[in-house]
Each structure stands twice: as structure tokens, then as C-alpha cells.
């Protein structure tokens, strides 16, 4: 299982790409409110990019119920294949 530190490091890069903002630093508490362009449409793209980075898929229920990046990282930790 990959450790949380590595997950956050890689998540950071994905977030920076998707929102084209190199100043973004995510932590377990980060939510959509903390990032300017994070609306429901960007969320779709973000989820796809995260899935690609970690070689995994989120389940339908999870996509809309994840409360913050910490919960996202928990799911990634349990399911990542790369």
C-alpha cells in the first residue's frame, strides 16, 4: 500500500494540472470551497485525472459524497494500482 505522504504529493500535481495553478497545496482538510475553480464541472475532470494517476476507479456513490481530500486519499490508498 502506498503511504499517505506519497498520495498527497501526487494529488498535488494532479490538482495543479487540472486547475492550472502551481500554488495549490492540498491537505486532508481541503474541500471544493478552498479552490477557486473547483465547481461541479471541474470535479468531473479532477476525478478522471485522479483515477488515471492512481490506476483506480471511484464508485458512483463516492464521487458525490467525498467530503474532503482526506477522504479521497483514503479511497485511493485502499484501491490504487500504481
Amino acid at each position, binding site marked *: 500500500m502506498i503511504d499517505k505522504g506519497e498520495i498527497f504529493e501526487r494529488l498535488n500535481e494532479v490538482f495543479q*494540472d487540472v486547475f*492550472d495553478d502551481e500554488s495549490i497545496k492540498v491537505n486532508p482538510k481541503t474541500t471544493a470551497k478552498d479552490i477557486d475553480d473547483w465547481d461541479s*464541472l471541474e470535479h*468531473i475532470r479532477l476525478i478522471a485525472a485522479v483515477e488515471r494517476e492512481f490506476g483506480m476507479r471511484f464508485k*458512483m456513490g463516492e464521487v458525490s459524497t467525498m467530503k474532503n481530500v482526506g477522504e479521497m486519499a483514503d479511497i485511493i490508498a485502499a484501491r490504487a494500482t500504481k
Partner: protein
Amino acid sequence: MRELEYPFDSELILQNRRKLRKALIADGSARIKKNIAVLGGSTTHDIIAALELFLLNQGIEPSFYESEYAQYYQDAMFGNPELDEFHPDIIFVHTSLRNINVGFPAMSDSREQVKELIDSQVKYFEGMWEKLRSKFNCPIIQNNFEMPFYRLLGNKDAQDYRGRTNFVTELNRRFYEYADEHNDFYIHDINYISAAYGLEQWSDPFYWYMYKYCLCLPAIPEFAFNLSNIIKSIFGKNKKALVLDLDNTLWSGVVGDDGVDGIDVGQETSVGQGFYEFQTYLKAHKQLGILLNVASKNDHENAIAGLNHPSGVLRPDDFTIIKANWDAKSENLKKIASELSLLPESLVFVDDNPAEREIVRAYVPGVAVPEVNKVEEYIRNIDRGGYFEVTTFSADDASRVEMYRQNIMRAQAQESFTDYNEYLLSLEMHADIKDFEPLYLARITQLTNKSNQFNLTTKRFTESEMEAVAADDKYVRLYGRLVDKFGDNGIVSVVIGRQEDNILHMELWLMSCRVLKRDMEQAMLDEVVRQAQKRGIREIRGYYYPTAKNKMVEKLYETFGFTLLSSDDAGNTVWSLMTEGYEDQNKVIKVN
């Protein structure tokens, strides 16, 4: 931009959309602006985002109207002020299997009932298309339907009249019938592109349940690229010629080293079959009017010997220009473009050698350079690149290759004359310069939309707009067709002037570069003045709007004897010529 050329990394495009967009907008290239209305039957957000990238990369700067979620039909049928004010140049109707709203056949249905079901669904769409056509008078692009992602009857679903697969196939056929019978109506073939992508992934219902996308998110770049090819073709941005390397591109081996007997093409080996099929694929492009040319590092006689390989498909006379020498390929490409009177960006360069491809990309910007590394990928990578997307096909396209061959003969004839005027007289030219005729409207529109260099205003027209001009008395319209002893050049010039009282405003003046320096422009002017005089028009006013490509006609009105009326900082100029006392300027072409 490499990231947006086929084969591209779709997920990278989705992930880095913002960065790519910024880079495209900052690259300073000239783009035509177009308004594109997207009427969606499902979510369209990321489709528009990806489409924008591909269009920017193809030289088109789009503005979008996006219908509210799934409001395509309401927007079309009942109007929407925002859409009305948007004045779309193109309408794209994004519907899919999810928008079939008459239901699917039931097992208890009779043949007659299923036929009624199909009729009513087609009628629903036709009503919408007719409404859009009459209201907006612009090209419409309509998705066909992808195949259903489950088959109630299994394999029989395809054949049985109650099968969903059969039903969708029939709907698609009816859409094609409509497209056949109507100008400016184009099918976006998502049935093909979803099959090529893989229907199971394409139709992954996750994306429908979650986001109301009718296709999976990772497929969106493929979808948008395929759609952008239709749009750029409509706006005259297709490629026009192939420039091909020889060794290891058209055959396996190096003809200079291995000899004709040592190169491989034909049915004997698997590799030979690959090159044989590739040659067959290339040769078929001649029917579309795509010019085949060679740029090869070879002695000329070796190149010809290789092209005469008994098991090959292509022959030396299939090519318009063969450059087999030891000069840099970039130089040969520039020469080929200039000898064909084409811009480098009209060329597609095919070479198995990555180093040559890099040189051409670097030194001849604008040339399309597909990735071709293994013969088994050659056809796919060129075909899916969409360089020659056919949206309209005119008689002129069919005979273009022959016309260019005649041009080369003309160039050879010219060398035997020291006096240019005598050469022109020896061509025995005669021209038809007449008002638009319905038969030629497609060709007139096509020429109008793809002429860049000899084009004073670079105004573009859709077929519907051109029909409107053809029906309106206030316009003086002329097409010019030039024939000489080597053959028929077809329709090569289009001029449109709008009469306002005593003045004729020249809204369009263009000519194909393949008849440059033949005094055809003078013959057109003579006829414009004659028509103007007939209408009692006293003054002809010419307009020149500079673009990145039309510098060659900057001084055209001056050489015609017009007087400069005004000019602005952007280089736009306005010119005037009095019709009284005008003397014909063309002395070498017999007209009408």
C-alpha cells in the same frame, strides 16, 4: 501543437486543458473567428472545452453558445433570445441513443408499427432541422446514433425488425437520406468513432448516471477531434496534397543501396503486403483530388526505378511533383508548395524517419507531419488524422489531379518562349465569365472558402448564404472559368459586388492561384465593368483587407488603375474606379 495531433493522449488533454488553451492563445497565430452553437441532448461542457482546443489548433477561434442541459429541441423549435442573437456560423446538434424519445420496438409490435415508430422519430428530428435551417441559414452538424450497449435479442438484435440494434441502424440510414438531399447538413459519425474507440468503454453508463454524459469522459477528446475535422473542412482548412518519402515509407528497403530487386512491396512477404496496402490507400486519394508528390533523398533515376517496381501500386505518373535529390527535405517541401501554388500548410508530409519529420516541423511551419513509425500504423495514423475530411465533393475535386498535371505541361511550354505575352497567346485561352448558375454554386462556395492568397476581402460564405446572394438583385455576381489548349482549369475566380445607388462595392474578389499570371483577373475586371455599366453604375469601389496570407493582392486595385480613397493603420485600403471611358485590359483571353 503536438499534444493535439492524432494520435493524441486524451487524458493528458483533459487534464491539461487550461495550460494547452493558454499556450494556443499565446502562440500569436492568425485564426478565423466563428460562432458555434452547441445544442445538446446531454452534458456538453467538456465536449465544448475539448472542441475549442482542437479548433484553435486548426486555425479557428470559436465562440460558443451552449444550450441549457438537454434543451436542444426547445432551443431549436421554440427559440431562445440568446441563441437568436448569437448568429451561429455552425449549429451542432449533440444527440445520442439517450435522446431516442419514441421508445424502442416491443416484441409484440408488427412491422408496420415499428415503421411508424421510426417515421415518427425521424419526423421529430426533421422538424427541428427544418426549423434551424430556415431560421439560421447556416451549416448543421448532426450526430448519428451509436449502437446500443446492450442487445436484448443477442445477435438477432441486428437483424430482427424489433431489435434495438436494427432500429438504430434504420434511424441512421434515414438520417443519411436527409443529409444526401440537403446542402449544408453534415453527419457527425459517432457510430464509427464509438466503434473505433470501443463501444463498451464509450458507453460506460457510469458517466451517464453520474454526469449525464452520453459517452465516457476519456473518449471526449476523440469525439471533439472528429467533430473539429468537419468544422475545419467546412471552413476551408483541409489539406490539399501529400508529400511522400520513398525508402521505408512507400517500400521496405533503400532502393539506392539494395537495388529495385532488393526493395520489398507486393504480396510476397508480410512487410511487402503492408507497403502494398499503404500504396493502394495513397493512390485512392487521387480520386478526391489530393495531389501526390515525392520528397526523397535519392538519385532521381533510382526513385523512378523504385516507383516502377513491378509489384508496386503507385507509378511515377501518379505523382504531380517528384523531388528526388540530396537537398534538405524542408527545402524540397517549400519548392513543392511553391510549384503547386499552395501554402506549406496545405501539405501533409509522410516520412518514416523521425529526424526528417523534426526538420520539416521546425523549418516549414504549418505542414502536417503525422507520426508514421511502423508500416502497420501508416494508414491508421494518416486516416484518423482527418487531413482530407470530405464535406463537399465537387466535379472540380475529381479532376484536380489532372488539372495540376496540365499546369506542369504549361510550365514546360513556357520555357520555350522568351516573350511572356506570346506564351499567353499560344495557350489559346478562352473564358466563361458569367452570373452564378445553380449547377456551379457548390464549387463557387468551395473556392470562396478555401482561397487565401489571391483574396481581397477573405469573406467566407456558407452554401445557404451563397444561395441568398445568387437570388438577390442588388448583387453583381461573376464566376470565371478558364480553358486553354492543355485543358479545362474549371472555375477559378469569383467576384461579388453589391450595388448601392451608383456605386458597386466589391465584397468579394478572389482567384485560384493555379491561374496566376494568365491575365484572368483583367478579364474578370473587364466583365465587372461591363456589368456595372449596364446597370448604370458610375463607380466601382474595391476593398483590400490584409490577412497573414493575402499580401500578393495588396496592390491589385492599383495595378488595375483604381485610385486610393482611404487607408487605415491596420492596412485596410479602399479604392475607386470610374466606369466611364474604361478600356478592356485583357488582351489574351477570349471571353464568353
